[in-house]
């Protein structure tokens, strides 16, 4: 056995025995129901840690600064969207249009750069994204359209609009400063990562500590009880969708800026991956439960899988199968835990 591999197995063995003793201590303190709840509540943390340690052991490149920053940067736009989607899911609704809004935001920004200048163009495009979120919210909250169907329909319209604007061509921006947002760094860390961090902190604060956060959980947990407590159901729902639109806009701006071009598309894979990240984190699809840290772990966990597959050199084809299986596992676990 080569010494390197030997060392690795030794590390793995030490980790295993360490994990066992931690587990024994935990199991002793929490038995039965409490233990079950602990596992259910922190499954994502355990899975993330296991995968992280596993990759650190299995790959030499994984624990390098470049790789980790790369991992964060790749997942920053998705993470921003997933954080906002957490608001929507907590209210018991769903937003399938985030991908399409992100794509259109990029197209709009690329289109308006010449007329408005780089930063104003990005800003106005993001404001348009907020407007699209508000429209979704109004349709869901006041016209009582099922949110899944509503956002599926609006995402078709939005994707169609971006196609109509670009006429199917990629819109490349000549101004080199258009790529600042996507490619420039602050203290060695890309702007997009900073934006992800800011979004994470804000989401965490708002959900856990603010009045609006309380409203979100109440509306998603029991709309009638929330209404009888004087909470404006419609307002809360519209606000959640507006936040979702804002995040989609920011993510779209980052994506367009990274490549220096706007491209039409329905962004459906963005929507689905963001949704998957939220759900894998343990936020309930039925509303009333969820938190920012869960979504952060969910995003990073899915990101780790992709990163790990690349590093270890497994065919990316199998990635989707694994990711799909994990999403199923997460949702099934949530559903089973409710039946207990």
């Amino acid at each position: 056995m080569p010494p390197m591999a030997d060392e690795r197995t030794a590390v793995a063995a030490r980790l295993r025995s360490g994990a066992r003793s931690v587990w024994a201590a935990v199991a002793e303190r929490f038995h039965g129901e409490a233990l079950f709840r602990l596992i259910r509540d922190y499954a994502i943390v355990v899975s993330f840690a296991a995968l992280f340690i596993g990759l650190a052991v299995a790959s030499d490149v994984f624990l390098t600064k470049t790789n980790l920053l790369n991992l964060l940067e790749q997942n920053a736009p998705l993470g921003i969207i997933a954080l906002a989607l957490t608001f929507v899911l907590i209210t018991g609704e769903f937003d399938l249009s985030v991908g399409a809004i992100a794509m259109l935001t990029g197209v709009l920004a690329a289109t308006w750069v010449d007329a408005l200048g780089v930063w104003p163009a990005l800003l106005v495009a993001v404001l348009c994204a907020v407007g699209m979120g508000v429209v979704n919210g109004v349709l869901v909250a006041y016209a009582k359209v099922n949110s899944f169907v509503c956002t599926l329909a609006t995402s078709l319209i939005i994707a169609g609009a971006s196609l109509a604007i670009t006429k199917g061509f990629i819109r490349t921006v000549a101004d080199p400063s258009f790529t600042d947002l996507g490619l420039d760094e602050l203290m060695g860390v890309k702007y997009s990562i900073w934006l992800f961090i800011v979004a994470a902190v804000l989401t965490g604060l708002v959900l856990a500590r603010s009045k609006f956060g309380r409203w979100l959980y109440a509306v998603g947990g029991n709309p009638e009880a929330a209404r009888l407590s004087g909470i404006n159901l419609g307002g809360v729902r519209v606000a959640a969708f507006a936040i979702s639109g804002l995040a989609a806009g920011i993510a779209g701006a980052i994506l367009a800026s990274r490549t220096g071009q706007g491209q039409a598309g329905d962004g459906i894979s963005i929507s689905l991956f963001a949704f998957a990240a939220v759900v894998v984190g343990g936020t309930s699809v039925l509303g009333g439960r969820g938190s920012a840290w869960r979504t952060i772990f969910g995003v990073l966990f899915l990101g780790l899988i992709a990163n790990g597959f690349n590093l270890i050199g497994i065919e990316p084809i199998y990635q989707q199968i694994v990711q799909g299986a994990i999403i199923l596992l997460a949702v099934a676990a949530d559903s089973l835990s409710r039946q207990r």
Partner: protein
Amino acid sequence: MHATDEPAHDPTPPLGAGPTPPLGAGPTNRAGPVAGAAPAYVESRGIGKRYGGVAALSDVSVGVRRGEIHGLCGENGAGKSTLGKIIAGAVRPDSGELLVEGRPVDYGSPRDAIRDGITMISQELALVPQLSVLDNVFLGREHGSAGLLDRRRARRRYHEIAERIGLAIDPIAEVGELRRAHQQQVEIVRALARDAELIVMDEPTAALGRPDVDRLHGIIRNLRAEGVTIIYVSHLLADLLETCDSVTVLKDGRFVKTSSAAEETVDSLVTSMLGRKLEQQFPEPVPVPAGAPTVLRVRGLTRPGHFEGVSLELRAGEIVGLAGLVGAGRTEIARAIFGADPSEGVVEIDGARYTRRRPARSIRRGLALLPESRKDEGLVMMRSLRENVAMAHLDEVVRAGFVRSTHERRVVDEVLASVDTRAASISMPVSELSGGNQQKVALAKWLFRRPRVLLADEPTRGVDVGAKRAIYRLIHGLAADGVGVLFISSELEELLGLAHRTLVVRQGRIVDEISREQADEESIMRAAFGATDAEEHEHAPDGR
């Protein structure tokens, strides 16, 4: 089919109050119902059923003879529906036994009961609204072979059944498009298509207008003529007496008597529902101070189809009871005052006119609504005690949009202590508390800031005796502190024990006001059942 050639005991004569010999020979208080020669078709022996800590039925023995229409009546919560469900296999008794034709049976599901020819038509529709009448009738019993439906045969059979009992509903109509009365008739046909020999009907007239009630009674009599046995569960005593051969009265989950309907009147039935209450401890009432201001005044409040022309006044420190049967409109009145549902009419709080009623505006004006169902309307079960208690008054603990955590914790602790709820942690989900503690949390939510008016809708429903007593003390204490309380309850002794005066609601109107001095169970129940003027007997106008 089964019933046409029923040999043993001749089916009772077709129409009118049945001259069948009363079971157990007349109004007797003895529990053993089968005294005569004819053996009971279905008999319950010492049946008991508990839900949580509450006994829905205890030691109930009732016999039903083949071919009769047997009424089951009692107040709200007397256990009549539960007994019906046990007979039809929808609920399993905890104790006692059920005998069908003298043979003990143990039904695990309605499917077991239908094998013995017993089925139930409940208040909630049990049809598939998107399917046709014909498909509903034969659902799960499709005619045909090799997976192909024999629609012609099904249709022939449908017409055969419908004709026998005098129904004419188009078999290809979609069930969801039919009126409630017709849907009910489809359920009857379906029961017969499954060879039902005994049909339990739970409050069959509750959602029907007068003409439909008469038609239903005609159908029921036709069923009897066909030899089908009917158990007719209802709190509408006049309806029962009009159709039934014999009537069983239940009271607090106990058997009172079975007697011939011909020998009973609405009055006599109400009388037999009285009395035999367990003594409850109620705090000594504090008289309302002479100069106490009127905190709530309601004039001509109307919500079409629910209640009409409701006027009431509530003074600071006064507890006003709102009595009536389930569905009389009590809950709807409270919700309308609070602005949870739209209504017309005048509401004044502290003498100031209150228009554009909405929950948020009501809360600002000092109204509080403790809703009927804590699980569906009162609490967000999956969230913490802390979030639930603070939910309606977040502004009190929020600065610049963010919750002041320690301040909130302190206030929540105080409020929970005041309702005597001790929980391991105020961060645990409400769902993990007992029913009594959940109800106290639902009440605590409205004590965050002292309300002017508390609208308490069945505040002690489904809680144990200890929690009940605690809730009585709390409501009493609030009133003593000057809060006006509108107290809705189906438990008469609560109203008698707590309320300064009681308003009785019947079919959407306040029909009586009874002062504490005059109040007894009988006066309230007579007013609630409309026993004093049974002729009038109105039904909800639009069959809601």
